[in-house]
C-alpha cells in the first residue's frame, strides 16, 4: 500500500469528499494561498474553484457563524484555522450557537460543519500560537472532537467528520504533518469514537492524545529495550465521543496507567480520562494514574524553556519508572524528537 504523509492524507480525504459531494465548501484565512495551510489544501482551489475553496477576511467569529448559516441552507462547510488559538475569537459561535443550534430550535436542521485547527508546537511561537484547547470543545454537548495521530486515521476520520451531520472539531498537530503511514487510495471512513491500540503491551498503559502518542511510542520502545517493560500505547483519537471502555480494558490488564495529554494538565482532558478510568478500573489499578502534560505556564519562546514546558518521551519514561519502581534508565544515548529531529513515520 502507498505511504502518504499526514498532510497528504488530510488533503486526499477532503479532495475525495469534495469530488463526491458538491455541497462541501472549504474556507479560512489562507486556505487558497500558495502556502495552502502547510500544504493540506493543495489543489482544492484549482479543482473546485473559488466558490468552493476561498479565503476570508480575518473575522473568526463571523466566519464561524457563516459556516453555521451555510450549513442550515444545505452546505457542508469546512472551516480551517492555521492555529487553534484563533478559535478563541469564535467561541461564542462555536459554543453558544453551533453546538446547540439544532437542539434548541427543535431538531429541524442538520449541522454538518467541520472545523479544522492546527495545534502544537512550532518553533519559538510562544503563548499565543501554541494552545491545544481540545478540552474546551469536548466539554460542550453537541460537538464532536477528534485528534487523529496517524495519516491513515487522518484520512478516515476526516472523511467521517465531513459526512457527519453533527459539528466536528478536528485538531491536527503540526509536528504530525510529516509523519507517513500506509493509506488506502479509495475513500473510507474511520468511525469517530473508537480508541486505537498503537502498540500492544501488558505491563503498563499509556493513553495519548495527538502528538503525545508519538512520544509515548518512543518511550515504549526505550522502556522495552532497556527494561523489557511492555507498554501498551492507546491513542484516544476522539475525545467526544470518548472510548473509555477500550482504555479501561487495557488498564484492567496492565494495572498501571499514564495519561499523556498534549495540553496543560490542570483541568484538561486528562482529568476526564483519569476519572473515568479510575471509575472503571477501581479494583484493577495498582497505583494512581499519572498525568503528563504541559507545565502550568504560558508557553515561553526560548528553546531551553520550551523544552521544559513540553513533556516528551523522557517525561513519560520517568513516570513509568517511578510508577513501576524501576531504576532510571540512562538516556544520554537515546535520541528524542525535536523541531530539527522530526518524527517522520512510518507507523
Amino acid at each position: 500500500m502507498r505511504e502518504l504523509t499526514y498532510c497528504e492524507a488530510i488533503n486526499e480525504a477532503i479532495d475525495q469528499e469534495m469530488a463526491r459531494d458538491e455541497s462541501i465548501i472549504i474556507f479560512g484565512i489562507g486556505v487558497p494561498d500558495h502556502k495552502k495551510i502547510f500544504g493540506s489544501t493543495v489543489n482544492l482551489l484549482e479543482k473546485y474553484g473559488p466558490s468552493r475553496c476561498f479565503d476570508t477576511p480575518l473575522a473568526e467569529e463571523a466566519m464561524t457563524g457563516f459556516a453555521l448559516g451555510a450549513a442550515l441552507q444545505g452546505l457542508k462547510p469546512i472551516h480551517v484555522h492555521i492555529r487553534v488559538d484563533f478559535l478563541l475569537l469564535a467561541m461564542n459561535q462555536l459554543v453558544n450557537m453551533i453546538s446547540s443550534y439544532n437542539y434548541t430550535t427543535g431538531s429541524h436542521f442538520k449541522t454538518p460543519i467541520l472545523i479544522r485547527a492546527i495545534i502544537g508546537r512550532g518553533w519559538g511561537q510562544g503563548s499565543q500560537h501554541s494552545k491545544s484547547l481540545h478540552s474546551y470543545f469536548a466539554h460542550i454537548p453537541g460537538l464532536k472532537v477528534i485528534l487523529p495521530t496517524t495519516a491513515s486515521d487522518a484520512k478516515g476520520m476526516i472523511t467521517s467528520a465531513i459526512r457527519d451531520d453533527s459539528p466536528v472539531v478536528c485538531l491536527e498537530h503540526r509536528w504530525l504533518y510529516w509523519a507517513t503511514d500506509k493509506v488506502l487510495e479509495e475513500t473510507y471512513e474511520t468511525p469517530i469514537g473508537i480508541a486505537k491500540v498503537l502498540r500492544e503491551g501488558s505491563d503498563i498503559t499509556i493513553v495519548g492524545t495527538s502528538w503525545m502518542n508519538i512520544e509515548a511510542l518512543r518511550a515504549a520502545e526505550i522502556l522495552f529495550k532497556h527494561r523489557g517493560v511492555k507498554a501498551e500505547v492507546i491513542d484516544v483519537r476522539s475525545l467526544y465521543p470518548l472510548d473509555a471502555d477500550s482504555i479501561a480494558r487495557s488498564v484492567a490488564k496492565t494495572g498501571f496507567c499514564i495519561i499523556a495529554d498534549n495540553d496543560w494538565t490542570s483541568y484538561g482532558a486528562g482529568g476526564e480520562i483519569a476519572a473515568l478510568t479510575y471509575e472503571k478500573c477501581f479494583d484493577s489499578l495498582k497505583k494512581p494514574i499519572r498525568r503528563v502534560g504541559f507545565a502550568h505556564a504560558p508557553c515561553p519562546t526560548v528553546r531551553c524553556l520550551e523544552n521544559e514546558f513540553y513533556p516528551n518521551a523522557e517525561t513519560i519514561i520517568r513516570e513509568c519508572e517511578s510508577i513501576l519502581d524501576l531504576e532510571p534508565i540512562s538516556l544520554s544515548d537515546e535520541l528524542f524528537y525535536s523541531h530539527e529531529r522530526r518524527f517522520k513515520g512510518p507507523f
Partner: protein
Amino acid sequence: MSMANTVGVELYQRLYLARKCEDTIIKLYPEDEMRSPMHMSYGQESIPAGVCQALKSEDPIYTTYRSHAAYLAKTMECRKFFAELYGKTTGTARGKSGSMHLALPTKGHYGATAIVASNLPLAVGTAYAIKYRKQPLVACAFFGDGAMDEGSFWESINIAALQQVPVMFICEDNGYAVHTSKHARQGFKDVMSILKGFEIDVYQLDNDDPLRIYQIASEASLKCRKTFRPAFLKISCYRYLEHVGINQDFGENYRDKSKFDDWQSRDSVAIQRERILEDGLSVKEVESLERKIEVEIEEAVAAAKEAPEPSNNELLKGVLT
C-alpha cells in the same frame, strides 16, 4: 380586492396576529404556566410585519430573543408558537426553546438567538449558500440597535459586502439596549453615513409605518435578489414595555413617557387598521378578520394547555444531529 388592498390586509393580519398574541401573553402570563422569559415585541410589530410581507415564505430569516412578532409575521401560525411558550411537545421545539429560540424552517424561520449580534453571520452564510445553490431567495437577519456595538456586526457587514450575497440586514432601532440609550453606546452620530461606505445598499426610515416598511423592504429585496448586493434597513421603532417582561417601566426614568405617548399616538397597528378601512374594507370585514385571528389564538392557547409535556427522555434527544 386590489393588489394594494391584499397587501394592506395581509399586513394588517400580520400586525394583528402579533399584537393579539402578545395581548394574550400579557393576560395569561400571571397564571405562571408559560415559564419562559418574554422579550415582548409590543409596539415594534410593524418592522417584522412589513419586512415579512415583502419576503417569500421560503426566504430564510433569523431573529433575536425579541422574537414574537417576527415569528408570527413570518409563519402566520400561532399553534406551535403557544405550544412552545407553554413548553409542550406540540411546540416548535417540544419545549426546548421557549420564547428565545423559536424556529420554523418550513416557513423560512431559521431561528431566534439570545446572544446579541450572533445571528448576522448566520444570515450571511445562508445567503452564500443561496447564491451558491442558485436559489431565488434572500436571507434576512433582524436585530436591535444594540447589535451595532458588537464586532460581529461589523465583521458580518464586511463579509457580506465583500462576497456580494443576497442578505438583508434589518435593524430594529428602538434606541435602547436594555436600559442604555444608544447615545451612551455609540461613538458616532449617524450610522448610515458609516454604512454607506460599505458595498451595500442602505435604507432608512424614521418611523414605523408598516406600509412604508413593506415598500422599502420590497424594493430592497427585489434589488438584492437580482444583484446580490446586500441591503441594510434601519427602521426606528419604540418598545412599549420593559426590556423583558410584560409590564411598562416608565417609572424608572431611563426613558421619557412622553416619547411613548408620541409613538403610541401613531401606533402602527391602529394606523394600518385605519388604512384598510380607508382602502375600502368595511368595519365588519375588518372585525371579521380580527375575530378569525382571535379564534385562532384562543384555540391555539387551549390546544397548548391541553398538549402533553415532553417526557424526560426528550432531554438527551437531538444533542448530536
